[in-house]
């Protein structure tokens, strides 16, 4: 109960600080491309190139055909979309407190906002990536369906998962500078362990439960279910329960760790 109040208070706090959040997010996003000629066009180029390379390697070199009757390019793109966001958001938010140390050390500031700024900034890229995905869908004649809107549910679910994770990693990063490196190694593993480039159906069913311990598996399948298979999200009841239990536990751990370590931030940074 205490924690629900805390979450509620925090959401209120963010709303109160919406101008600062907006300013910081805008600036954070701009800073990524500051001084470059193409500017925000890089946001489009990077994921496009990634899709192209992977598509080329898998269809031309490995001869991957359509998966469950869906063209590989579509299947690949929709799987990459959430992972790309997840990986960028988690990497950048881990060093958020360090990067914004001037807001931690010198003024009174709700520091828990800082990792969220990074999530929001990565979110802008995510929207563009989703649009690219939709274009690829339409090119391949996978038409609009009301199930697309389910993606919002999965997006919110992923965001809450990320908030929890980024509070944990960013707080620990302040004390242990190796955290960022560890996270990037884990993400590399995660990229291959999450069935983004391969269909999880090729594994024997008895391994399913191992895959499902990965909350990102739920999100990624969710994106595919919404955009490609048009399967309603409430059908996978066990997965819903499992994902949300995991996410809420991670969120609570995030809140506790962040709250415990917060008084030390200004001393250490």
């Amino acid at each position, binding site marked *: 109960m205490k924690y629900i109040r805390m979450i509620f208070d925090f959401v209120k706090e963010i709303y*109160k*600080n919406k*101008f*600062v959040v907006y*300013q*910081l997010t805008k*600036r954070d996003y701009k*800073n990524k491309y*500051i001084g470059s000629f193409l500017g925000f066009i890089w946001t489009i180029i990077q994921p496009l190139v990634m899709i192209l390379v992977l598509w080329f390697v898998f269809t031309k070199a490995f001869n991957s055909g359509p998966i469950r009757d869906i063209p590989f390019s579509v299947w690949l793109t929709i799987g990459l979309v959430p992972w790309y966001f997840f990986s960028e958001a988690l990497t950048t938010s881990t060093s958020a407190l360090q990067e914004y140390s*001037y*807001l931690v*050390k*010198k*003024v*009174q*500031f709700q520091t828990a906002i800082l990792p969220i700024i990074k999530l929001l900034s990565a979110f802008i890229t995510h929207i563009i990536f989703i649009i690219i995905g939709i274009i690829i869908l339409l090119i391949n004649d996978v038409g609009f369906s009301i199930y697309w809107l389910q993606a919002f549910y999965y997006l919110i679910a992923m965001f809450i998962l990320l908030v929890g994770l980024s509070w944990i990693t960013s707080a*620990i990063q302040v*004390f*242990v500078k190796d955290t960022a490196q560890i996270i990037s190694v884990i993400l590399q593993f995660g990229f291959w362990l999450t069935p983004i480039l391969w269909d999880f159906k090729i594994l024997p069913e008895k391994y399913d439960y191992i895959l499902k311990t990965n909350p990102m598996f739920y999100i990624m399948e969710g994106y595919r279910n919404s955009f490609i298979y048009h399967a309603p999200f409430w059908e996978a009841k066990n997965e819903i329960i499992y994902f949300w239990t995991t996410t809420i536990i991670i969120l609570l751990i995030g809140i506790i*760790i962040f709250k*415990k*370590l*917060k*008084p*030390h931030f*200004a*001393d*250490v940074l």
Partner: protein
Amino acid sequence: MSDIAVKTENLSKSYKLYKNPIDRLKESLNPFRKKYHHDFFALKNISFEIKKGETIGIIGRNGSGKSTLLKIITKVLTPTEGNVITKGKISALLELGAGFNPELNGMENIYFNGAIMGYTKKEIDKKLDNITSFADIGEFIEQPVKTYSSGMFVRLAFAVATNVDPEILIIDEALSVGDMFFQAKCMAKMKKMIDKGITLIFVSHDTGAIKSICQRSILLDEGSIVDFDKSDKIVEKYFVMKVQNNQKTIQPQTKAALKSLNKETKHKIFSNSDQFTKRASYQRIQNGMANFVNIQLLDENENVIQHVEYEQNVILRMALQINNDMEKLAYGYHIRDKNGIDVVYSDSIIEDKNILNLKKGSKYIIDWRFKSSLIHGIYNVACVLSVPIDIASSKVDFVDFIPIATQFEAEPRKKSYLYGNVHWDNTINIQGISP
């Protein structure tokens, strides 16, 4: 209770010093609260109350905990123990550049800084003219603040901090980077705000500014409140404390030495020269034939002093030991101002008091007595031992030269201000000529 602006209760801030950065994490997350650190207290048991509309100064030496205290009041730092209650909107100018985003330009930063303090865009819009005109940095307002000079920075920061209508204004030493005119402007602005009933907490090394602005002051030393009283009393106490501290460091002695010293007070100058040796080592030139053991500035009662009143009688005491037999030894002193310019000089050749026929192993104490008529300022005393070779051409062999033998601060003349560098006795003759 309702008229209190800031109240602290048993406030302590200790820094945990760890051998390893990771120990800090281990300790924070250790469920059994195992200790991995030793404590350093930056603040100890600070309790005070500041009423609404009061103007409070905080003084203390470097490292006495002033900035830590301000950071806790503004809630940037979390106290280890105790708590702070503040009532009213706080605006603080703590460190240069605090709350500014270096990438944003000046104008954007005004909004950004305002937003951090909890003001909406509309509220800042109304104050924008006042802020920009006070900051007065011209077209730089459109440039990223990372290109600013520290002067421009403080202008903008002070303009924002004072124009957002705070109820409590907290100013740290940051102001001192501004030029004289800007500082005067800031003083005027602060006085105007005080008249409007704002609560002010002001930290400065400029005791004059403290006396003129703050009704009461807190004297901090080594993290504790020494006293909290009227500003002029506190400033005086601060000076006394500085002097005492100096004596403390110069006088610790063994019991045995103390007994013998009671008879021969002058000899303690030999036994207690660690401080001196350390300070004097800076750019010291020696040839080893003789050397200074200690140099002290004393008042008439032979207490070590750091502050010299105008026209006070002072003793400059030199203790030296001779390492080789010598025929003749000259000695002298320079008093230099903070820019290193010689203000006063004298030596034994001028005074015709050279020491003759010196024996190896002998020691001397030389007292120079003079009445200081230096103008207000900080001075260095440089001391020199030499063997005169040819007096007419002032050719000497340096035996020991110490550029910084001791330092002192000359107090301003009490009756009226003294300009110029030197004052001598004048005779004035007035002749009235009727038209």
